[in-house]
C-alpha cells in the first residue's frame, strides 16, 4: 500500500486577513464622528465586528444606555499592525491616541461605502450604533467586575 501526503493550504478566516482588517478599520473611522476615533474604541469595535452575536450584544446594550455588560473584549495586535500599515500608506494620521482619516483614506473608503453590494451588515451596524463615546466604553469596562 502506498500513502501519499500532500500539504494543503490552510484556511484563514477573513478576520485574520490584512486587507479585511484594513477595510474594517477604514469603516470604523468613516462612521465615527469627525472621521476619527481613539484607540480603545477601535479595539472594541474590531472585537465586536468579529462575530454576529457580539454585534447584537452591543446593540442591545446601547438600548439600555450601555448599562448591560457585553463581556470582556480583547485587544488585537493585528489591529495595531494594520493601523501602522494604514498610517504608512497615508490612509490615516495619528494625534495623541486618536486616529483620523486622511483625504486619501476618505476617498478610498468612499468607493466601498458607495458600493451597494459589499459590507452591508457592517454598514447597517454602524448606522444603527451611531456614535459611541469614550464615556460609554468606560461604562462597559466598569461592568467587567460584575
Amino acid at each position, binding site marked *: 500500500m502506498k500513502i501519499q501526503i500532500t500539504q494543503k493550504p*490552510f484556511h484563514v478566516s477573513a478576520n*485574520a*486577513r490584512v*486587507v479585511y482588517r484594513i477595510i474594517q478599520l477604514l469603516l470604523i473611522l468613516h462612521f465615527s464622528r469627525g472621521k476619527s476615533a481613539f484607540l480603545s474604541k477601535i479595539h472594541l469595535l474590531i472585537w465586536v465586528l468579529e462575530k*454576529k452575536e457580539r454585534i447584537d450584544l452591543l446593540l442591545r446594550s446601547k438600548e439600555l444606555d450601555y448599562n448591560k455588560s457585553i463581556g470582556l473584549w480583547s485587544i488585537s495586535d493585528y489591529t495595531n499592525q494594520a493601523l501602522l500599515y494604514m498610517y504608512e*500608506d497615508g490612509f490615516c494620521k495619528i494625534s495623541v491616541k486618536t486616529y483620523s482619516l486622511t483625504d486619501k483614506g476618505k476617498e*478610498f473608503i468612499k468607493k466601498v461605502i458607495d458600493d451597494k453590494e*459589499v459590507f452591508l451588515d457592517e454598514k447597517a451596524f454602524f448606522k444603527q450604533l451611531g456614535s459611541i463615546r469614550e464615556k460609554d466604553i468606560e461604562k462597559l469596562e466598569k461592568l467587567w467586575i460584575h
Partner: protein
Amino acid sequence: MLKIRKLKIDIKTVQNKRFGAFYKFEPNKLNLIKGNNHSGKTTIVSSLFYALGMEELIGGQNTKALDSILTSVVKDDGKEYTINESVIYLEVENINKKIITIKRYVKHVDILPKIAYIYESTLNELIDEDYSEITYLHDGGSAQNSLGFYKYLEKYIGYSLPKVPSYNGGEVKLYLQIIFNAYFVEQLKGWTDFFASIPSFGVKDPKQRIVEFLLNLDASEFEKDKFRYEEEKERINKKWLEYISKIKIKVEHISAQINIEYLTPISIEKFRDSKFDIYFTNENNQKIVLDDALNNIKKRIKELYIQLQKPSDKDSSKRLFQIRKNIQTIARKISKLNQIIDIKNYEMKKLKNDFSNMEEEIRKLTDLKKIEKYTNSSDRISKTLNGICPTCEQPIDSSFYSSKIDNIMSVDENKKYLEGQKKVLKVYIDASREEIEKQKEIVEFLKQEYEERQSIVTYLEKDIALDTNMAVYKEVVDLESKEKFYKKTIKDILIQKEELVSLSKDWKKNEMNKTTFEMSFLDNKKITSLETYFTRYLYDFGYGSKDFDQIKVSKQKFERYFPIVKIEGRNEKIRINSSASDFVRSLWAYYIALFEVSQKNRGNHIGLFIFDEPAQHAMNESSQKAFLERLSQLNSCQSIVFSSFEDKEDNALGKEKFQNMIKDINEDNIHTMEIDGYSIKKIV
C-alpha cells in the same frame, strides 16, 4: 495555429522624447534572440505575453506584472523620462493566413489596460482610428462574451474550448490562459514545474485538461461514462439506505427490532427467500420473534374468549398489578427517549450555530473578493492592499499569521473550501433532523401504548368493584387490532424487501458497466507515443539522473499524462528524482513531445513556443545545442527563444560559444537577432 510576425513597442514621455522597439519574427522557424543580462530581454518577453492577454502567466492581471520601463519611467543616458503613454502592437497570423494586429495600451490617460483593439491589417498598414473590434480582458465574461478578447482570440486561433469540471462540482470553460502554459514559459517561475504558471480559474486538475485538449484525448467522454457509473452507484446506495430506514421505522412502530444494517446490494441475494428477523425484547430481555408474538396474540385471544364464557374473572387484581408494572416500563422508556431527543436537539443547535458562522465567514470572504476591484486598482492607491509593505517595499503576506504558516489559501480558494464544508454540514444537519423526527415518532407510539394500558387499568378497577368482565372485552378488542396491525406491517416490509431486491439487480447491472481501464484505447496509444517522444528527447538532451527504462508517462491517476519515475515498484514524480538541470531537460522534452504528438494526431497545439531563458542551472553547451537543433527542425512550428548565452569572464568566448551552438542548424530554419545595448531605444 498562431504565428507571431511583428512586435512594436511605442512609448511617449512627458519630456517629449519617444522610445520604442521593433522586432520581426519568422513564422515556422527558430527565432533566437540573444541579449545580455540587463538588456531588457524580459521587457520584450512580457510585451509578447501582454499583447496576447497572457500576462497572468508572468504574475498578474493587466499591468501588474510588467516592468516599470513600460509603466512609469524610461532611463536613457543616465536621464529619467516619465512615461505618459505606452502601447504594444503585435502582428499575428492564423492558419488561414489571416493577418491581424492587436494593440493594447500599457499606459494611457483614458484607455484602460483591459481594452485591446483588433485591426484586420498588418502593422505597417495600420491606421489607428481604423480598428475593427474593441475587446475587453479580465472583465467578467471576457472569455464568453462576443466582445471579450479571449473569445475573439479563441475564434481566431480556430479553437472551440470545451467545458470542463470545476472545483465546486459544476462545469467551467477551459480558459485560453490555462492552455497557453504549454506554449509560453517565462524565466522566473516557468522552469520550476510542468505548466508552472497556471492561473486558478476554478478548473479542476487544469494540467490534465491541457494535455487532454492539446492531444484531443477522448478522456472527457471516458470520464463521463465513469461519472455516470459513480452517479448510479450513489443513487442505488442512497435508495438502499432509504428503504432500510423505512423498514426500520415500520418495525419501530410495532416496538420491535430488526438487524438489517449489514445488508448490502450484493449480500441480499442470499436473503432472497428468507424472512427478515423481526423480534421483540420483553422485560426479561428475551427475544421473541414476530411470528411467535403473533401466535401468542392468537392464543391469548382464544383464552380470553373462553374466559368470557365464565361468569367473572378472578384474576383481575393480579392482572392489575402486572399492567401497572408494564405502564411503568413504558413511562421509563418515554423519559429515556425524551432525554436523547433533548441531547440531539442541543447538538442540533450547535450545528446550526456552526452553519450560520460559516455563512457569515463566506459572506465576509465574498465581500473581500468583491472589493478587489478597488484594492487592486492599477493606480496602486495603497501598497499594503497590493501586498507590498509601505515602509520597506518588500512583499507582505496576506494574512496576519502567515509568518507562522507558509501555505495559506487565497480568498477564492478559501471561499470554495468553506462552501464545500458548508455542504457537508448541511447534510449532517439534515440527517440529525431526520433522526430526531424518528425518535419523536417512537415516543408518540409509546404514549399511545401508555394510554391504552391506562384505560385497561380503569376497566380493571371497575371490574373489581362491580364484578364485571369489561376489561376482558377491552383486551380482546385491543389484541385484535394489534394482530391486524402486525400483519399489515409484515406485508409492508415484504413490499420494501422487493424494492431492495430490485435495487440489487440495478446494482449488478451497473457493475457490469464499470470499466476496468484507466483510459480509452486511442488515448492509450497517444500517451504511449508521448512517452516515446519524451524519452527520446531526454536522451538527445543528455538527461542522466535516471535510466530511461525507469521513466514512463503516467496513465494512472497519479500524475496522469505526466512523466513519472518507477523506483522499486513505486511511482514518483520526475521532479524529485532529477537534478535541477535534468528537470529542465525533461521540461524541454515534454513540451516538444506534446507538440509532436499533437501534430501527428491532429491535435490542438498551435505550433508556437516562447521560451524565456531555457538554459537554467548552468546547463551544459551540448544540451543547449541539441535543444535548439530540435526546435529548429520542428515542422511548421514557430519557436521564439530568448537567451543570454553569456560567458561571465569573457565576452568574446561567449560569442564563440554561441556560434558553435548554432553552427549545425540549417540557415533556412533559424532567424537570429541580437539585442544591441538596450531593447527599448530612443527614437529620434
